[in-house]
């Protein structure tokens, strides 16, 4: 069985908690473990935070979140977080651990590393001036669910 949801939120930091809670609630249908759910929520929080502070650089913008659940013996949760912000000039460099454009603001530079480690797949595409799309997925070893 497939299921999906779409979410559109303004790029306000207040919405980071809402976004990860909403995706977490959606992912719950795949019966994840506590650790799997925490991994998903943390990764969503990282992607949404990136869009707010880097994509829109604290200006007003919209963040689009789409989730798809493929439910079966092994479930897969796919999450897309997209913004229409400034884009990332060098995605490969941005994904290096500890890379940050704002060391004075105490960013850890671990956002993409967290997503990469906590999810099974991560794909980042970006175009200067057009925005960034982060696609990630995680397998959930759930008990069999009726299709």
């Amino acid at each position, binding site marked *: 069985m497939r299921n999906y949801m779409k979410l559109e939120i303004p790029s306000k930091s207040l919405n*980071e908690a809402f976004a990860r809670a909403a995706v977490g609630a959606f992912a719950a249908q795949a019966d994840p473990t506590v650790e799997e759910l925490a991994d998903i929520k*943390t990764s969503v*929080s*990282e992607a949404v935070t990136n869009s707010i*502070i880097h994509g829109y650089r604290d200006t007003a913008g919209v963040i689009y979140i789409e989730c798809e659940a493929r439910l079966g013996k092994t479930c897969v949760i796919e999450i897309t977080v997209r913004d229409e912000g400034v884009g990332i000039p060098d995605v490969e460099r941005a994904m290096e651990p500890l890379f940050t454009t704002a060391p004075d*603001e*105490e960013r850890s530079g671990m956002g993409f590393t967290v997503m990469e480690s906590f999810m099974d797949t991560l794909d980042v595409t970006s175009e200067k001036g057009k925005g960034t799309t982060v696609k990630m997925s995680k397998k959930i070893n759930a008990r069999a669910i009726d299709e």
Partner: protein
Amino acid sequence: MNCEIEQVGGALVVKLKGEIDQHCAEELRGDIDRQLDIKHSASLIIDLGGVDFMDSSGLGLIMGRYRKMQARGGKILLARPTPAVDKLLELSGINKLVGRERTK
């Protein structure tokens, strides 16, 4: 996010409760640094026992306090991280830099 700060001997003890993300990290940073500067604490203990959620904004917060304490010759200890928070600390390498308070 809720934050209780008290001076115990030479240590500033910060008890964090709730969720740490970018939205609340800046306010937390200000609250902790203000007290560190007022109390001139020799060490900083961050009690993470009540933290339900933390992302890399929390790592930035801890690394910043680590650097601050190191610059003034002090030390920082973390206490009672939940398994999810500890997984993040381990991934970041912070566990190799920052000591662990094991008493409570």
